C-alpha cells in the first residue's frame, strides 16, 4: 500500500477536466485507489467521486494505492499533478 499527500497545483483544482484526466490515468492500472480530502474519501477511479471531492487549487489530497502496480500508478499520478494535467498543451 502506498500513500502520498499531493498538493493540487492547477488553477481551478480537480475540476471536471482534471478529474477526467486523473480517472483515465488510474484506469490503466489494476491497483485500488482512494482519494481523500478533509475527512472525505472517494474511489479515485470514479469520475463522480473525484468531481464531487471538488478539491480546489492549493488544497492537499491524500492518495492511497494498493495493488501489484501501485508504484507505477503512483508515479503516473504524481507526473500528472506535476504537469498540472497538461492543461498548457
Amino acid at each position, binding site marked *: 500500500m502506498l500513500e502520498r499527500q499531493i498538493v493540487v497545483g*492547477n*488553477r*481551478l483544482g480537480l*475540476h*471536471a*477536466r*482534471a478529474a*477526467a484526466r486523473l*480517472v*483515465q490515468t488510474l*484506469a490503466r492500472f489494476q491497483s485500488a485507489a482512494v482519494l481523500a480530502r478533509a475527512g472525505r474519501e*472517494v*474511489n479515485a*477511479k*470514479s*469520475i*463522480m*467521486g473525484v*468531481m*464531487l471531492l*471538488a478539491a480546489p487549487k492549493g488544497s492537499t489530497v491524500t492518495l492511497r494505492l494498493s495493488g501489484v502496480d501501485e508504484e507505477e500508478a503512483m508515479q503516473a499520478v504524481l507526473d500528472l499533478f506535476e504537469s*498540472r*494535467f497538461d*492543461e*498548457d498543451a
Partner: protein
Amino acid sequence: MRRAFSGIGATRGLALGRACIVQPQALDIAEERIEPGRVEAELERLHEALSEARRELIAVRERIRGAIALELGEFLDLHALLLEDPELLSGLDQLIRTGHYSADYALKLQRDRLAAVFDSIDDPYMRSRREDLDHVVGRVHAALHRGGDCVDAPGGLAGEVLVTDTIAPSELAQLTERGIVAIVTAQGSALSHSAILARSLHLPLVVGAHEALSHVNDGDAIMVDAGSGQVIVEPNAQDLRRFRQLQRENEREQRQLARLKRKATRTRDEVDIALYANAESRQDVSQALELGAAGIGLYRTEFLFLQRNELPTEEEQFFAYRDVVLGMGGRPVTIRTLDLGADKADSCGLALGAEPNPALGVRGIRLSLREHGLFRTQLRAILRASGYGPLRILLPMVSCREEVLAVRELLLECTRDLRDEGHEIAEQVELGAMIEVPAAALALAGMIRHVDFVSIGTNDLVQYLLAADRNNDQLGSIYSPLHPAVLRLLHEIFALGRRTRTPVLVCGEVAGDERYTRLLLALGLTRFSLHPGSLLQVRRVVRDADLHALRRQAPALLRAADRAGIERALQRLEAPE
C-alpha cells in the same frame, strides 16, 4: 386536420417532412419493482443499455469533425467516463439486486442521489456539470426503450422533422448526419449551445414551442419555418403553395447575394465603403475572405479564455492570432483584447471578487490593466503575430485617455522585450479604442489623437446611453438605436473622425442590420464591421445607395425629436432618389 402553433425561430430555414416524436425522458419515471426471479434479466437489460450508450458515444465522437469536435469532445469524454463510473454502476446493480427496482427506476434513483450531491456543491461550474449527468442518464433511458424510439430507425432519418422536449448539442450533430431536416423543441432558447450549433449546421430549429408535443403525432406531415418560428402540422394546399413560394424566394435571394461576393462595395455615386468582418473562428475568417471583406474589423479573443481551467499560454494565443493573420492573406486583422468581466472571468481561472453590477464593473481594458500578467501575455502574443501580416489592436471598454496611454507604454515595453528575444515585430501596430462607454464617446476629442482608429461598439453604447439592458425582454422597444441621443452622438463621432483624419468604424449589431445601413451612411459612416452572414445584404444596400443624397438628409434625421420623428425621416431615406 391542420394544426398550427409557433415557437421561437432559433435559426433560419424552411423544411417540410415527417414528424418523428421523441418523448421527454427520465423525469416522470414511476416507481417500478420487479419480481425477484427477474433480477438477472433486468441486470442484463441494464448492462445492455449501458453498452449501447457507450457505443453511441464512441460513434458520435468519431463522426463529428472540426470546430464542433473541439467543443463537444470534452463533454463526450466526460459522458463516456460517467458511463464507466464504478460508483454509478455498483449503485445501480445494488438497487436492482437488493431493492428489486426496475432498471429505469434504479437509474432514476441513482441519478437523483448524485444530482443532489452536485446541487449541494457551492461552485456554479460544478453545479452545471449536473447537466452532463442528465444527458448521460437520458441516453441510457433511451437505450432501455429502444423498441419504440424512432431515433434509431434503420433507414436513418432522411426527411424527418424531430419533435421533442429539448435537444443536446451532441445529439444535434448526430441527427444532422442521419438526414434530419428540422427540429422543433418544446423547451429551449435561441441562445443555447444547441441553437448556436444548429446555425452552423444550417439546420432549421424552432425552440420554445410549448404545445409542440400535444399537437403533433408521429408520422404527421409537418412544415417548419424557422425564420418565423411557425410550425404547421398537416399543411393544406395553401400552406404548401406558400412554402414552395418561400423556398423559391429564398433561393432567388441566395443566388442574388452570391453574385455580390466579388463585387465592390461602392455606392451609386462611386464612393467606396469599407466592409470589415467580425470574427471569432476559422469559419468566420474564411467566410470573410470569400465574401470580399476588407479585413477583420473585430476579432474576439474571449473564446481562448472561456470554458477552460487554465489561462491560455502565450504560445497558444500566438498560434491562434497568427492563424487569423495568415488566413486573411494580407488584409488587415484587428484583434480585440480580452473583453470579459468578473462574472465570466471565474470560469477561466481568475479568482476575482463577485460584483453586484458586472456591466459597470471591472471588465475589458480595466480588467486587463489590473491583471498585468494576463495582459502582457496577450499583448506579447499579438505583437508576435504582427510579424506575419497587417495587425491592429483594439481595446474594449475604454473610458479615459489614461487607459490608452498606459497600454501604449506596455506595448513599447513588450515590443522592446520581444525584439531583444529575437522576435520579428511589425514596425507599425495600430492601436484603437472601442467607444462604448458614453464618457469616452463624449470626450473623444481629448483622446482621439492618442489612437490610430476608433471602433464604436453600438451594442453596449446604446445600452449605457439608454440605461437599458439589451437582454431584458421586459423593456420592450426601449433598447433601440433609434433615439435622438444615439444619432447625434454617432454623427458627432463620425465628424470628429473626419476632422482629425482618424478612421471610425461601427462594429455593433446595427452595422450588420440592413435596415440601418442607409441611416449610418447618411450620418457619415464609411467603415462597417459586421458578421459575415450579413455582409452581402449590407453590400447590396450600399451599392443601391446615393451617398451624397443620403448625407443631405442628415440634418432632418438629427432634428427629429423622438423615435417617431426618426422613423419618418428614415422612410424618406428609403424612398428612391
